[in-house]
């Protein structure tokens, strides 16, 4: 049962990364693809009615993590205290920037919020990637199952770990690049005119970076976390996930060259899902490895809530998520079509 919830949780985080990923990515590339305030309005208009719902996936995934794996939630949230608080502040600033930008038609006001929006999107992408890097590398859990990591030490991956070391920084940069690609492909799909053309150029530009970052991660991760390597050597079927990621990435490039924005965007979705599933599969059964000895690691089993709660949780989670999926399909259909530079309210 705990493994079922581990899979559901990975599903929710993957949904979050795919959905909020495109609006974070759109923010990260906003100044690259949009030169005027009107064009940036077009960028924000393409995510305006959707970003809030996308972010709910993070809240719902957090809630699910909380009740299914309370020990993991407690240890990791208090251990990664400072960067999580930065994430919160950035989420606040970003949400406010999107919602309040269009309230006052003053060029200074709009420029200010555009910068806030873009910078906070960019930093969030890096921080979320670094967070994943930290989970892969593991944390110095003590005997009681707690830890507290400083922001950085000497940037080396060693016993004196910090939240930022060279490995987690690389994962953060890789996350930024892949979300920038994802966001650029979203904009290619959802906008028209100059922004669409520049978004396609940006996607072509970033693609090479994403490809290189993927190779680097594939080499480094099993070295930083040997458990991942063991998982993939012991059981062959897990290779479908990295294969999915690679196929998605290549597909995105092919479709982009053919000018098929939807296919390219879906390829990028497959890439993100494949990468996250690869990481999750590689970690399992760990949910947070310990750098202080294997016995202290948090696993799917020792971090999970009691059996009754997990079973009864499924009874409401499944219908609840079916409803939510229904709303999403309805809302995305309602806001289907391309966003023009003029006449949108953001």
């Amino acid at each position, binding site marked *: 049962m705990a493994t079922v919830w581990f899979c559901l949780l990975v599903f929710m985080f993957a949904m979050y990364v795919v959905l909020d990923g495109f609006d974070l990515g759109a923010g990260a590339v906003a100044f690259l693809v949009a030169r005027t305030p009107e064009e940036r309005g077009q960028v924000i*208009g393409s995510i*305006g*009615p*959707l970003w*809030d*719902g996308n*972010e*709910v996936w993070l*809240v*719902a995934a*957090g*809630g*699910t993590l*909380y*009740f*299914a794996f*309370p*020990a993991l*939630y*407690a*240890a990791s*949230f*208090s*251990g990664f*205290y*400072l960067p*999580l*608080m930065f994430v919160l502040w950035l*989420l*606040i600033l970003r*949400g*406010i920037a999107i*919602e*309040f930008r269009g*309230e006052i038609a003053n060029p200074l006001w709009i420029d200010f919020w555009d910068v806030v929006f873009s910078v906070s999107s960019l930093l969030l992408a890096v921080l979320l990637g670094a967070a994943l890097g930290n989970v892969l590398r593991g944390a110095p859990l003590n005997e009681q*199952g*707690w*830890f*507290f990591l400083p922001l950085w030490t000497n940037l080396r991956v060693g016993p004196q770990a910090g939240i930022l070391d060279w490995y987690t920084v690389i994962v953060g940069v890789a996350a930024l690049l892949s979300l920038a690609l994802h966001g650029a492909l979203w904009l290619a799909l959802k906008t028209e005119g100059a922004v669409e053309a520049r978004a396609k150029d940006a996607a072509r530009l970033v693609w090479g970076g994403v490809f290189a970052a993927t190779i680097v991660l594939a080499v480094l991760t099993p070295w930083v976390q040997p458990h991942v390597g063991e998982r993939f050597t012991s059981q062959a079927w897990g290779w479908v996930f990295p294969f999915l990621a690679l196929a998605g990435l290549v597909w995105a490039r092919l479709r982009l060259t053919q000018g098929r924005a939807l296919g390219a965007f879906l390829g990028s979705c497959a890439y993100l899902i494949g990468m996250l599933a690869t990481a999750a599969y590689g970690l399992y059964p760990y949910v947070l490895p310990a750098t202080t000895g294997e016995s202290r690691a948090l696993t799917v089993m020792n971090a999970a*809530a*009691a059996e*009754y*709660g997990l079973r*009864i*949780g499924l009874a*409401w*989670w499944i219908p*609840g*998520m079916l*409803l939510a999926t229904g*709303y999403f399909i*309805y*809302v995305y259909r*309602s*806001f289907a*079509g391309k*966003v023009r530079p003029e*006449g*949108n*309210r953001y």
Partner: protein
Amino acid sequence: MNTALTVHRLHFAFTVTYHYLFPQLTMGLAALLVIFKTLALRRDDEVYDRCARFWARLFGINFALGVVTGIPLEFQFGTNWAAFSRAAGGVIGQTLAMEGVFAFFLESSFLGLFLFGEQRLGRWGHWLVAVLVFVGSWLSGFFIVCTNAWMQHPVGYRLGPDGQILLESLSGLLLNPWAWWQYAHTMNGALITGCFVVASVGAFYLLSGQHEEDARRFLRVSVVVGAVATVLQIFPTGDFQGRLLAYHEPVTLAAMEGLFRTENGAPLAILGQPDMENRRLDNPLVVPRMLSFLTFRRWLAQVKGLDAFPEVDWPDNIPLLYYSYHIMVGLGTFFIAIMLTAAFLLWRGTLFRSRWMLWVLLLSLPFPYIANTAGWTTAELGRQPWVIYGLMRTADGASPMVVAGNALFTLIGFAGLYALLSVLFLLLVYREVARGPEDEAVTGAG
């Protein structure tokens, strides 16, 4: 006292108090928006649609702030209250996750359509979307109150071998009798905030001679709903909450009432200052025997005072608890007087000309916010020294590895960020109120 614990408590108190300034209005307004939309349909009255559009704009601003200040609360259970979360996450994580799955998805999906899709949806479609937003926001309130009610009055659990608190009955958790009275009281409180805000803006427009057609509708709806809601706030919802306290948390009731000694025929303190040094109420103004009657429906019933309980189980800030409670009840009583008087004038047909009454309504704007905040302060301080009543002390719930300095850093960060949000919020609300309800049809462009 332990410094880190104090900072963690202030951290949560500050962020949750600030957050609740926004949802109390959006939950109240969500209900009033449904009423505006229903009246527009039933009476085929375009002006009610225009009223709804105006309040929807203010709803949107409040909602955005409610969302961005709400996310930190869920995170803080893990960041600042890790020991509590590890022990109780299997129980309260259920309701918090349900809030995300059932309420937030619904709310966030349909709010955009409600705010910007009026033309595309048609009148009935738009009405339905308003109802869905209302259901989403009130469901969200339910799951949060349910979580809090479990901390006040834990049910449906058993204790595991290593101090884990294990969920034993989800229906027990959701049907906690405490939750249902607390929910009724909380949501009605939100409705009162909504009514006073709508009435206050209506009074402002009438007094300053603008948008009078809309302002009369604001007042009609808010005064009628407000008159009912303010009465329900004291009885039965407040009354039953008080009686639940008397049975399950008698020490909290004694502290709230400033009752230091156990008495038969205990008096109800209206005014007075708790004097912790001398264990008495200074300058008391009391109604004899009233507390016994209100609590047990008998004039001479025995009500336990603080002296009946060991001092380690007393709430740790009795004066603040006492004042919060008295401010809440005192304001609640004033609200009834204001709303009933306004309703009487409305019925007589003179409300829109009674400048003094309009002034009272205009100036009453901040008070429901104060009353709701005082109410939550009462609930949270009253539960002390427990984080889960009778099960886990607050001192044992904080994150063991997050030291005072780190927590203070982020508390200061939140204070600065929220100061900025406050300025932006006031600026934008001022602009919307100055702009007022307009005829411009909302564009359907997404």
